[in-house]
């Protein structure tokens, strides 16, 4: 009742004062924060991560909510209709090269990835999952409708809820990856339309498709989760995060120079914050590893800096508050620029503690081997990694060949969960918790046999190969430097995607590259050959039978062979008849 009273008041006020005055009457129940992080990557490229967070202090499921302000209605209705606890959808074109680009704030696999936690009130999870993925397919113009039981798995340990959750029964989790999905402007447009300012104002004016798809990497995502409304966490709020990460190739756009500016990357500059946003920041990573002397220069000079431990590393960010009029005092628009005073040597780049590589080994079209190589480059700390492999059913895994070797020795996983595939029904699921010793390379390999598909099951371009979704690595990587626990609601968005349990380690989720595996492909002119062969068999049979049937038989003096005669004589002797 206490919740309903303000609503009634709200309505009354709206009726009395007309549409203009409503917002002044009481504090907003939803808020928008927008944020852009620009990071010069170790390889010389530049990554830009946009985050738009809409937070809504409303219990979507319990109240029959019909009035939406900042939170997109289409997603809100989805959550209440399908009792979604958490939803994470990412659409990615390209591959984040962890070894050269460092850890990303948010990694996503190539193609489309969707994972959803349903509330425990849902009775038929599979049905809800199917319908949900179809609706999302329509909303985001993506081929999510191709998600079915053959590519859906229920991981037991790898994907924990990121928001507030009272139960973590993994039966309410569904996870699917479509590695083949091609992401383009038709997926970007619906994503942009969900933003409160669309692409009219604020940071989103930078989101022009012709520039965003002129990059090395493009990943857009939607994350919906419940979060605590306040420190006491008595009630929950819904959080929608729309994130977009792009990596600009500094080499091709800069003619070998690594300097960049907003205008050069996006062919736009920022003129204002989104009027609906309560916070609007641009962060530029200006921390340099190992080198104390000033090597780079940002212009205009930042109003303030922010220092924190992000992904295990001490970072310094130049902060630009777009809601602060001082930011635009010099000129009408903000065109951030970064210049390198002395060229940094690429070879001295820092390799992240955890990175991985995956490939298919062997040759021929009968057997093969899936190998995942995990690198732990931490100088003295070992840490465990959860490895999740989803392999389509047409690669028949030989589980007894599973081999995990570190430094030439067997490495026994402390947890292993394997769900075998069923032909045309569900994929293989393999989850393992593997301890990675310090400064080591671990190879996980498993052999497989390629199945012969039915001829209608081949894709229209079967000789292209079949995709195997990437393996997922989840790990708590130990920090080199201690981090102070920060206030969750106050800290920048890029550091609050994953809840951190303690300050000595940080959570990393990594995806390896997807694989392309060739299956034995029939020559599709085969039907013609089958006709030929069938005709032959029929003709041969028919010919001989016809010959036998139409032949006239004459009686002839039997000419028996010696053996037959001998046998006949024996029988005759037994019968007492004279031999022949």
């Amino acid at each position, binding site marked *: 009742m206490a919740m309903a009273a303000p609503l009634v008041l709200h309505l009354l006020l709206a009726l009395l004062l007309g549409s203009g005055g409503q917002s002044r009457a009481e504090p907003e129940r939803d808020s928008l924060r927008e944020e852009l992080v620009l990071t010069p990557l170790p390889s010389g490229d530049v990554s830009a991560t946009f985050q738009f967070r809409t937070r809504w202090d409303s219990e979507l499921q319990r109240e029959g909510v019909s009035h939406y302000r900042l939170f997109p209605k289409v997603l809100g209705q989805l959550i209440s209709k399908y009792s979604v606890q958490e939803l994470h959808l990412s659409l990615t074109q390209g591959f984040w090269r962890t070894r050269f680009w460092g850890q990303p704030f948010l990694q996503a696999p*190539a193609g489309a990835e969707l994972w959803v936690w349903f509330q425990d009130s849902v009775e038929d999870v599979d049905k809800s999952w199917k319908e949900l993925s179809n609706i999302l397919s329509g909303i985001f113009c993506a081929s999510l409708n191709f998600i079915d039981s053959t590519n859906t798995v229920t991981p037991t340990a790898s994907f924990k809820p990121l928001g507030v959750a009272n139960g973590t029964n993994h039966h309410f989790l569904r996870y699917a990856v479509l590695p083949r999905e091609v992401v383009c402007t038709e997926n970007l447009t619906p994503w942009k339309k969900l933003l409160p300012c669309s692409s009219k104002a604020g940071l989103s004016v930078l989101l022009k498709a012709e520039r965003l798809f002129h990059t*090395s990497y493009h990943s857009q995502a939607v994350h919906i989760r419940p979060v605590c409304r306040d420190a006491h966490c008595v009630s929950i709020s819904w959080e929608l995060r729309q994130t977009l990460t792009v990596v600009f190739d500094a080499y091709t756009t800069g003619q070998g120079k690594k300097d960049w500016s907003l205008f050069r990357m996006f062919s736009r500059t920022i003129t204002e914050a989104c009027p609906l946003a309560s916070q609007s920041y641009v962060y530029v990573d200006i921390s340099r590893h190992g080198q104390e002397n000033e090597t780079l220069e940002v212009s205009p000079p930042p109003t303030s800096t922010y220092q924190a431990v992000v992904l295990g590393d001490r970072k310094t960010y130049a902060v630009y508050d777009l809601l602060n009029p001082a930011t635009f005092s010099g000129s009408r628009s903000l065109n951030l620029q970064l210049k390198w005073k002395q060229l940094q040597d690429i070879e001295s780049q820092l390799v992240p503690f955890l990175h991985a590589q995956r490939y298919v080994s062997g040759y*021929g079209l009968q057997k093969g081997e899936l190998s995942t190589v995990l690198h732990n480059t931490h100088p003295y700390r070992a840490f465990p990694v959860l490895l999740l492999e989803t392999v389509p059913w047409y690669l028949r895994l030989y589980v007894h060949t599973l081999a995990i070797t570190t430094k030439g020795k067997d490495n026994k996983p402390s947890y292993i969960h394997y769900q075998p595939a069923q032909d045309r029904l569900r994929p293989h699921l393999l989850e393992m918790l593997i301890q990675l010793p310090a400064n080591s390379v671990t190879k996980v390999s498993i052999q497989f046999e390629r199945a012969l598909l039915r001829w209608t099951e081949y894709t229209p371009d079967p000789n292209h190969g079949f995709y195997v979704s990437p393996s997922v690595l989840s790990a708590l990587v130990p920090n080199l430097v201690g981090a102070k626990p920060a206030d969750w609601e106050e800290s920048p968005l890029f550091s609050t995607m994953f809840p951190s349990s303690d300050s000595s380690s940080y959570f990393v989720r990594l995806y390896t590259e997807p694989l392309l595996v060739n299956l034995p492909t029939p020559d599709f002119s085969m039907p013609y050959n089958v006709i030929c062969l069938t005709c032959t068999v029929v003709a041969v049979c028919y010919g001989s039978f016809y010959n036998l049937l139409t032949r006239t038989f004459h009686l002839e003096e039997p000419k028996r062979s010696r053996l037959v005669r001998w046998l006949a004589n024996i029988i005759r002797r037994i019968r007492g008849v004279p031999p022949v």
Partner: protein
Amino acid sequence: MWSVVNPFTSLSLSFRMCKMRRMDLISFQLWHLLCSLHSLVMGLLLDSHRRRALARLLLRLNTPLCVVSYLAGVFWFLGLAFSPLTQNTYISENAMGSTMVEEQFEGGEHAISFARDFIAQRRKTGSLPVAWLERTMRSVGLEVYSQSFSRTLPFPDETHERYMVSGTNVYGILRAPRAASTESLVLIVPSSPETLNAQAVGLLLSLAAYFRSQIYWAKDIIFLVTEHDLLGTEAWLEAYHDVNITGMQSSALRGRAGAIQAAVALELNSDVVTSLDVAVEGLNGQLPNLDLLNLFHAFCQKEALLCTLQGKLQHSDWASLGGSLHGLQTLMLMVLRQASGRPHGPHGLFLRYHVEAITLRGINSFRQYKYDMTAVGKTLEGMFRKLNNLLERLHQSYFFYLLPSLSRFVSIGLYMPAIGFLLFIPGLKALELWVKLNKADFGPEEQLGPNHSPAQPIGQDARGVALTPLVAPVLISQATGLALYLLPVMGQHVAAQHFPVAEAEAVVLTLLAIYVAGLALPHSTHRVVSSTPRGPDSGWMALKLLGLLYLAIQLGCISLFNFSLGFLLAVTMVPAAALTQPNGPRFLYAVLLVLVSPGATLLGSLFLWRELQEAPLTLAEGWQLFLNALAQGVLDHHLYGALLFPLLSLGLYPCWLLFWNVLFWK
């Protein structure tokens, strides 16, 4: 075997079906003919009268049929270069067909300066300048890795002067934007002390720099420089696919780029070229998809480059007799090279991994018109851009073909009859022997008629073929083959200790010694075993029957995966095998048999090869080349897994010994 092209997958299905290969129709009709023949023969065989008549006919017509069949096979083969049997090549792959782009590579000068630097660095370091290559590749914006490998050869390689080899391969990966590294293309340059390929390395770097600044790539491109030519390539390929087939020791690769779709190897040793030669024959006679060659040919024409196949230019007038004979010459060269089963360039090793690949060689001869690096670079740019467009692996066109010239080809459906005719002969002869063998026992018995007393011991099965006397020769022949396969390499040190020869010589000489000893060894073995009471001829007939069947099966199998080898062996061995018998002019038979033995065929092929290349050999040179070829053949088997040596030593040589046995049966 007739369904080599695959028209079904493309959208242009109906269109393609209309111009459905003539070959398919022919084979369809052939099937029907075969069916009717079959029912006819079935009917005949069911009736004992007719069966006997047929047997008589078979005996009477056997020799003429064999002669006709042999001549038909040989002439069919010779006719392959003539116009009804060859077709014009065409690009089948849709993705490569229509999208002609303008090549904009202008880095020819750049390539030459890279090449000069490479030569200078090479001289400084004394081996592949790994650090320089890594630095240069990184500076043009590639992701650079290197791989070290080492391999101890089974015995010293005298032609390349190497025994314990260790080297480093350097490769840089150009990552395609917005692609997940699932597919890649490879440009490979082999570099070894004797052929530096400096200009090729320069062009590779220059192309890498140019490709890096382009935005249209959809597949990663690997720029690979290997040391010790094929050894390095093999090491890299094995490491890339994480297999160990040949006992190569190499470090693991740290950078990969998914499934390799196609590869082009480049060999260039001069700043300008007069022509580009293309090599297609790979390990064990495998060939790349014809579309890759067509692609190269298309760009040759577009850039107006002079392109050769087997070092031979295309004849201007194809239809004329001269043109056809020229084509035949090229085709014979291809057959000889394919039959050798050696990888004729680094591309040959890619084929095992289902990667379509060709080798391009820049030739600088005395011709007037020279092309610079830019022209060669543009050709490569065009090829890579087209390969980049591929949606599927190259599979639309032929995998089995013979080439009388770059623009014409003979498909498998048209060349297989040649070997079919030849393999008909051992079949006919075997049938004849079978009939004779049965008759030999049948005949006298029939004459005995009713007088034949039942008291006679009949436990011993008089009909059919007694197999016991055959066991010894077969076993001994096979054992000789096994010795031929194993002993030369295993016993090289023993031989080198006891005789004044080097290891490599020891291997070749042991090989020859065992080969010759095999001739002396087994031909009287059957006498050791209990003498047979059977008719005087049944022993050798049975052995010959067995030998013929063994030969036919082997040749049939070989010709399925390497037509050239199968045909070459069939055309020599089949007539001698058919003729051999212990009666008649035995000396003549012996000479003939020795002349067609696998070793002699190899020697003859070498002479023929050089003759066709218009660089005839003297006898001494020929012999030297022969010894080299033997050593190389054994090495190829151990280093790359070439099958020719085991095939000859374990299969055909023992089979040939069986006929030698037949000849000296009495």
